[in-house]
């Protein structure tokens, strides 16, 4: 009988900026001072958009909203590594990634106002995916298309820890590996899939090792370290552009609720939340930037004020757009050319509504 070890694997963990804001120069990516400040601004902007959106939802001005508070480094750090021509394939909690890609705030708000206008993406960007994990396959398809056409680009898929329990995420990594798809899978392990903890998703020691079964590279990064995430994503995208897909597990924490319909106090402890508050991605980065002399109290306050002004304008713009919603447009984008039955249904809809509004005005 022969017993031999036929394969061995390990998973690397990467951190550039530690919890106290100390930088490991050997890991840190090459980033200009302007870009460092932009990363900081984007993280703060994202957090404020989330906070304001939750408040708007509480006032009944927004539908269900999925805030990404606590995950700003994982999203900003990764999205900024993707070139404009590289495709972003998000799940439903990637507000910070959208903002990094230049999506206007009012468009994000429109989505939560229940308007398709909010998913009217531009550039190499997919709309939010509500089914968990199924979008990973779209990134594999985009990445495969880039391999087929010889494009020097890659697709970046976002999903959470819960999504790694879905067959589609495994299928995506597996086919991407087989087809040399230019694809990076970014798992934001935020520790909770609504109320089920990370350990309730998988007995695997890391989620990054899920790459092993697909034969692609898996790596773990401190997801609250914007510079570490940027460095790892850059490397992964370089690899993907050569036809070698990568799974990144970004260890982070969803500091707020799953969505505005959820109350995390039911399932997690104050101690845990306090522990992750200590590891907050924005505070750590701010400490570093202050130490580097790139920020001071005055600059921090000025950025905050500028962000408040931008958000206020964008909320106004979102509400203005909401007032202009035309219900009959639901018929207009189902097919490139509207078939006869749908044209009939649209006409019937219009005539019923005009009759209804006539009746209302008669009553008046």
């Amino acid at each position: 009988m022969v017993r031999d070890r036929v394969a061995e694997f390990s998973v690397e963990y990467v951190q550039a900026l530690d919890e106290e804001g100390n930088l490991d120069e050997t890991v840190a990516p090459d980033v200009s001072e302007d870009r460092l400040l932009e990363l900081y601004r984007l993280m703060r902007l994202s957090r404020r958009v989330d906070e304001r959106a939750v408040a708007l939802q509480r006032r009944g001005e927004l539908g269900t909203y999925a805030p990404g508070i606590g995950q700003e480094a994982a999203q900003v750090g990764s999205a900024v590594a993707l070139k404009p021509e590289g495709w972003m394939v998000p799940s439903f909690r990637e507000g910070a990634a959208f903002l990094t890609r230049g999506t206007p705030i009012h468009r994000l708000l429109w989505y939560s106002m229940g308007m398709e206008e909010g998913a009217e993406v531009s550039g190499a960007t997919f709309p939010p995916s509500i089914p968990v994990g199924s979008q990973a396959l779209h990134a594999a398809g985009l990445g495969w298309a880039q391999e087929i056409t010889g494009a020097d680009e890659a697709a970046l898929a976002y999903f959470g820890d819960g999504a790694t329990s879905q067959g589609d995420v495994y299928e995506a990594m597996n086919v991407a590996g087989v087809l040399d798809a230019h694809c990076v899978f970014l798992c934001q392990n935020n520790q909770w899939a609504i109320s089920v903890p990370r350990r309730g998703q998988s007995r695997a020691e890391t989620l990054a090792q899920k790459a092993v079964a697909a034969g692609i590279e898996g790596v773990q990064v401190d997801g609250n370290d914007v510079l570490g995430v940027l460095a790892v994503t850059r490397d992964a995208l370089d690899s993907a552009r050569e036809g070698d897909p990568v799974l990144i597990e970004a260890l982070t924490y969803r500091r707020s609720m799953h969505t505005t319909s959820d109350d995390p106090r039911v399932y997690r402890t104050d101690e845990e939340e306090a522990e992750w508050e200590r590891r907050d991605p924005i505070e750590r980065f701010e400490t570093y930037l202050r130490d580097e002399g790139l920020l001071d109290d005055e600059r921090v306050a000025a950025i905050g004020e500028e962000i408040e002004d931008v958000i206020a304008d964008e909320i106004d713009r979102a509400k203005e757009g909401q007032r202009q919603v035309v219900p009959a447009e639901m018929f207009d984008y189902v097919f490139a050319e509207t078939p006869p039955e749908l044209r009939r249904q649209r006409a019937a809809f219009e005539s019923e509504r005009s009759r209804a509004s006539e009746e209302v005005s008669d009553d008046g």
Partner: protein
Amino acid sequence: MANELRLVEAIREALADEMARDDSVVVYGEDVGVNGGVFRATRDLYEEFPDQVYDTPLAESAILGLGVGLGAYGLVPVAEIQFASFAFQGFHQLHQHASRMRSRTRGALSVPMTVRTPYGGGIRALELHSESYEAGYAHVPGLKTVVPSNPADAKGLLTAAIRDPDPVLFLEPTKRYRASREPVPEDDHTVPLGEAAVVREGSDVTVVAWGAMLAETLDAAAASDASAEVIDLRTVSPMDSEAILNSVRKTGRCVVVHEAPRTGGLAAEIIARINDDALYHLEAPVERVTGYDVPFPMFAREDAYRPDAERIRRGIERALSA
């Protein structure tokens, strides 16, 4: 010019012609490459178009999900699912993504994917290889569902499906793959999606069918004493209601035939449309000749399950005697 081709050969010809015409057309799926497809629909295409034909891992959800990405990127994916019954493993990709991409992004992204898959019974296949689920797909807004019944239409409809900017599910009647050789136009040949065909003119009764049931229906019409007008629906969604209504207004009677189970089947939808717009032309209730509300049986009983010419003929008699 026309070649005498079997239905499966006409499909192969459409794939070859479209790949030659447009190098962004990508044919992919399980066993479609080296093996040429388990039904040989892609025979030799891998050698002819090495950069456009790909074998994929055995994963239906992946095959359909990849198409969403390929299509959004700007390629023209033509995916094969080896048997329609296994498209359920990727149904969510059609329902939740491919069919909705255009409407939910207001046209910013679309998925011009064609999904080819053999469907239906009558070839003594294994369990779960014979289902007809066209009604389920027809219930998905944003998805077109096409079922050819003969070689010429198979080429024309598939060509139109590949050129269509929206996702199309193309159900190929397995039983008809090699049933006959018929003339198929050699040149560029398209059959518009969403248009039914009157394949037999008649004055007493309208019989509506599609796919594998067309041949049985034509046999029934020939065996009947009545003058039966036979309509091949060809595209089951979006449905050509006008073709059905015009015929029913003329004949005053109608029989709808499908292999799928009766409850919730497309016959119910067709009857509802007749009720909406041609009720007062009817001289008798509309008859249904369909499969039964049972799981598609294993092949010792499949002939008992599938409507055949005799059952359809009796359906015609019932419509005429009422």
